[in-house]
C-alpha cells in the first residue's frame, strides 16, 4: 500500500511541470482459477498483481504510466519521467488528502481467499457430475471452471482526495463440446457475481448451469443452418442485451462522443430509438457483476438513464473525456487493472421493461427468428455498424416457436436498429459478460426484456426464410 505521505510527494512531483490534475492508482489483486476437464482437475493456478498507474492531465492532454517498483524511488522516478511531457510552471500543490466515503453496496463478506481449493473444486464437480449423469456419448469434451478475484484499489488525486475500494468476484462456468457424424457444436454457460461463494450455493446451482450448457450443445447438433436475409427477429431477455451493448452502449461512451467519433454525437435530446425504448446504465445494483461503488476517478457509481422513451438524454462520462464535452464525469471511469489508462465504460446496461409479455411478442410474429443465446459481438462506434452472433435460435412460424437453427449473425447500424424495435416485453433479466475496449477487459452486465425488431439483416447458410 502507498502511504498518504508518499502519495502527496508523488503527486507533487508529478505536478511540477504544469499538469492540472494528477492521480495515483494503486492496485493489489489476488486471483485464483481452476478447471476440471473430462472429470479430472486439469488446472489450478494463482495470480498476484501489484502495481501503480500514474495519470497526469493538462487540458485535453493525458499522460499515463505504470510501474511495479512501489518504493519511493520507483514512484518518484515514474512521476519525473511522465511530467517531462509538460513544460509549464506548477499550478497545483497538494497539501492534504481527505478520504471520500461512499455507500458500500458491494461488501467483501466471506472472502474467497479463505475458501479452500477443495471446496471450490467440489462446487465445480457438482456440475461435472450432472453432465456425466446424462451419459450422452455425443458429449466429447466438458470443462467446468471456477475463477475468483479479490481486488484492492486505492486512488489518490490532486484534488486532495483519496479513496479505497475492495471488491470480490466469482464466476462458475461450463463449456461443452458435443459431436456427431455431422460435426461439432459448443455451448457455454457462466454465471458470475460480485458476491461470496454462498451465491453459488444458494442462488445459482452448478447442476442446473452445467445441464443447461450440455443440453444447448446437444440441441444445436440437431439444428439446421439459419436462413439469411432481412427478417423480423425476437430477441430473448438477459444476454440478448448484448445487442444494445454493442449497437448503442459503446457509441454512448464519452470516449467516442467527446471526439465526434460516435454515430450519436450531436444527437442529445433527439429521438434515437423507438418511443418504446428506455435504457439505463446502472452501476448501483447491489452486488451485480458490473457494479461499482466509486469509479476510478473518485466519482460515485450512479444510475444513468441514457434513453428515455426513445430520446437520447445521457452518456457514460469520465472526467477526462468530459472536458471536451463541458460535462462532469458521472461515475463511469473504469479500467481492467493498473496497466491500463482508464476511460468511460459501461457497468450494468439494459433496456427497461415494456408492457408486452414474451408470449404476446412471439404470438404476434408470423414468420421470423427467435434468438435466445448469444456469443457476443462488436461495434465500430463511429459508424454504428455492429454484429452479434447467436448461439441458440429458433424459427417462429404463425406465432409459435418451431425448429432450432444455428450459425445466425445479426448485423446493422446502431442508430437505425433501435428505431425498429416495435415490441418490448416485461421480463427484464441481466447476463454477465466481459467487455473489451481501450482500458482493457472489464466485467459488465448486459440486459433487456424480450423484444422484437421489425426487420434486421440475418446472416446464415440456410437460404431464404420460408
Amino acid at each position, binding site marked *: 500500500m502507498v502511504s498518504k505521505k508518499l502519495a502527496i510527494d508523488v503527486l507533487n512531483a508529478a505536478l511540477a511541470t504544469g499538469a492540472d490534475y494528477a492521480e495515483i492508482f494503486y492496485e493489489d489483486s489476488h486471483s485464483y482459477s481452476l478447471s476440471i476437464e473430462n472429470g479430472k482437475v486439469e488446472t489450478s493456478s494463482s495470480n498476484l498483481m501489484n502495481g501503480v498507474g500514474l495519470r497526469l492531465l493538462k487540458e485535453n492532454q493525458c499522460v499515463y504510466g505504470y510501474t*511495479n517498483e512501489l518504493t519511493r524511488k520507483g514512484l518518484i522516478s515514474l512521476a519525473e519521467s511522465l511530467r517531462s511531457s509538460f513544460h509549464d510552471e506548477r499550478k497545483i500543490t497538494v497539501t492534504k488528502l481527505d478520504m471520500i466515503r461512499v455507500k458500500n453496496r458491494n461488501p467483501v463478506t466471506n472472502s474467497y481467499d479463505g475458501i479452500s481449493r477443495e471446496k471450490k473444486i467440489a462446487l465445480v464437480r457438482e456440475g461435472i457430475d450432472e453432465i456425466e449423469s446424462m451419459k450422452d456419448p455425443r458429449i466429447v469434451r466438458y470443462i467446468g471452471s471456477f475463477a475468483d478475484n479479490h481486488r484492492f484499489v486505492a486512488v489518490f488525486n490532486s484534488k486532495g482526495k483519496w479513496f479505497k475500494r475492495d471488491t470480490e468476484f466469482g464466476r462458475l462456468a461450463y463449456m461443452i463440446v458435443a459431436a456427431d457424424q455431422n460435426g461439432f457444436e459448443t455451448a457455454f454457460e457462466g454465471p458470475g457475481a460480485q458476491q461470496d461463494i454462498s451465491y453459488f450455493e444458494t442462488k445459482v446451482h452448478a447442476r442446473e448451469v452445467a445441464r443447461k450448457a450440455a443440453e444447448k450443445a446437444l440441441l444445436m447438433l440437431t439444428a439446421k443452418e439459419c436462413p439469411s436475409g432481412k427478417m423480423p427477429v425476437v430477441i430473448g431477455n438477459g444476454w440478448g442485451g448484448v445487442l444494445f451493448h454493442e449497437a448503442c452502449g459503446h457509441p454512448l461512451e464519452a470516449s467516442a462522443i467527446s471526439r465526434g467519433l460516435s454515430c450519436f454525437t450531436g444527437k442529445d435530446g433527439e429521438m434515437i430509438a423507438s418511443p418504446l425504448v428506455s435504457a439505463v446504465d446502472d452501476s448501483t445494483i447491489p452486488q451485480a457483476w458490473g457494479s461499482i461503488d466509486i469509479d476510478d476517478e473518485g466519482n460515485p457509481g450512479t444510475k444513468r438513464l441514457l434513453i428515455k422513451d426513445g430520446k437520447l438524454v445521457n452518456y457514460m462520462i469520465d472526467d477526462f473525456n468530459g472536458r471536451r464535452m463541458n460535462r462532469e464525469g458521472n461515475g463511469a471511469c473504469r479500467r481492467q487493472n493498473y496497466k491500463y489508462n482508464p476511460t468511460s465504460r459501461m457497468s450494468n446496461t439494459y433496456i427497461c421493461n415494456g408492457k408486452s409479455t414474451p408470449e404476446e411478442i412471439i404470438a404476434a410474429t408470423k414468420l421470423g427468428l427467435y434468438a435466445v443465446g448469444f456469443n457476443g459481438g462488436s461495434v465500430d462506434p463511429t459508424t454504428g455498424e455492429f*454484429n452479434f452472433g447467436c448461439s441458440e435460435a429458433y424459427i417462429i412460424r404463425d406465432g409459435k416457436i418451431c425448429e432450432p437453427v444455428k450459425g445466425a449473425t445479426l448485423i446493422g447500424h446502431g442508430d437505425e436498429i433501435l428505431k425498429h424495435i416495435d415490441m418490448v416485453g416485461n421480463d427484464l433479466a441481466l447476463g454477465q459478460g466481459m467487455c473489451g475496449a481501450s482500458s482493457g477487459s472489464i466485467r459488465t452486465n448486459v440486459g433487456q426484456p424480450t423484444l422484437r425488431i421489425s426487420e434486421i439483416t440475418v446472416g446464415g447458410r440456410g437460404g431464404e426464410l420460408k
Partner: protein
Amino acid sequence: MKYDKFFALAKEAGIEEAELYIGESYSLSFSLFHSEVDNYSSNKSMTILARGIVNGKFGTATCDSWSNEHAKYLVQEIVNNANVIENEDPAFIFEGSPKYKKINTFNPNLSKISIDEKMKKLYELETAIKNGDPRVIEVGGVEYSESQESVTIMNSKGLKLAQKSNYFVYVGQAVAREGSQTKSGYELFLENDFAKFDVQKLAKEVVQNTVDQLGGEACDSKTYQAVLSPNVVKSLLSFFVGYADAEDVQKQSSLFIGKLGQKVASRKITLEDKPLKRNIFSRWFDDEGVATYNKAIIKQGVLQTYLYNLTTAAKDGVTTTGNASRGGSKMGISTFFLELKPGKKSQEELFQQVGNGVYITDVQGLHAGLNPQSGNFSLQSTGFLIKDGKQDRGLDVITVSGNLLDLFNDVQEVGADQRVFPSGIACSSLLIKKIVVSGK
C-alpha cells in the same frame, strides 16, 4: 543471483523440478487528436510465470514483480496447486535442446531515433490523412507505439535462455462521409527498422481503406464466387491452423482428428510455421525452451503434422514440434510466424478469373460469429462486387457465411499479393469457389 531464492525455496518445499518464465517489457506510446498530443504513455512491466512439479503434477502461479516475498508466494502456490491436480498427463521441465539456431530480433538503432523524430512523423501522418481526400471529415487519431521485450526461461535443470526483441507501430484512423453515409477505416505499419517507414504510403492506405467503403450498399442474398483479401484470409487462417493443435485432437474436439497425411484443404494450400525466418516475429526457442524449427503444417492440401508441446508429444509418442506457448494457466501451442505460400496471380487476374462475384475486404466480430469448434462462421463483412472481371461498387451491411474446412477446400487460386500482419501471419488473397452472402 536475483532468482536463486526461488529455486532454493522450491527445493526446500519438495518441488521436484521448477521453472521461471520471465517476460519483461518497456513500452512507449503517444497519440495525436486534432494536432495535439492527447495521450502519452511510458511503461515498464514484468510478468513472472512460475511452475513446478510435485508428485508428478504441475502447479503454477504468476505475479508481476519480484522480491523474496514473491518467491515465497510462488513456491507456496505451486505446491498447493499441484496437490489438487488430478489429470495424469506427463509433466516435463526441459533440460534443453542439443542445438539452438539463435536469431537476433533486436534492432539497437530504434532507441537511437529521437522521440522528436518519431513525433514529427506522427504529425506528418495526421496531416497526410487529413489532406488525403476531400471526403475525409476527421482523423480519428494517429498513434505511435514502440515496445522492447525480453523473454527469459530458467529452470532447475540448468537451462537458461533469453531472447530480446523490439518493434514500433504507426497507426492511423480516418472517418469519411459522403451523403448520409459515414465510414471509418484504419491501417498500421509494424517494423523494427525505422528507415523502412514511409509516412505517405501509410496515410494513403488509411485514406484508401476508409473512402473505398463509401457508396456501398447490400447486394442480393445468394451464393457467390469470391476473392477474399489477405486481411480476411489472415483472420480465417488464425482459426483454421488451430485444428492442428494436438491437445484438441487428443481430446476429440478438432476437425483434424484422424486427418494426418490426408487432404484437409485444396491442393493450392501450403501452410508453414517459420519461427526461424528473419523478421520481428522470429523465435528460436518456444515457451518450454525447446529449439524451434521451420515446418510445413499443410503441404499442397495434405496435413503434415499436428502442433505439439512436450506433454502432448509424449502422449502421442512423438517429438515436440517446438510450438509450446504459455497462455493462461497451462501450456498451450501457437505458431510463431505462419506463412501461406503465395501463388502467382495478381489480384486483377483473380478478379478476371471470377468474372462476376464478390471481393470481401474485411470481416468483423470473429469472436461472436465464428464457432472455432465446428468451423461454421457468419460474419459482418465489407467489400465490393466484382463485375465483368473488375472491381465494382461497394458492399455494405452484408454477412458472409460458410465453414472453414469447406472454405479452404474450395480454394481455387492463391494470389501473389502476400502481406505480413502484426499477428505473425503472412498470406495473400484467395479465390473461393463459393461463399454465402446475406444482404438484401
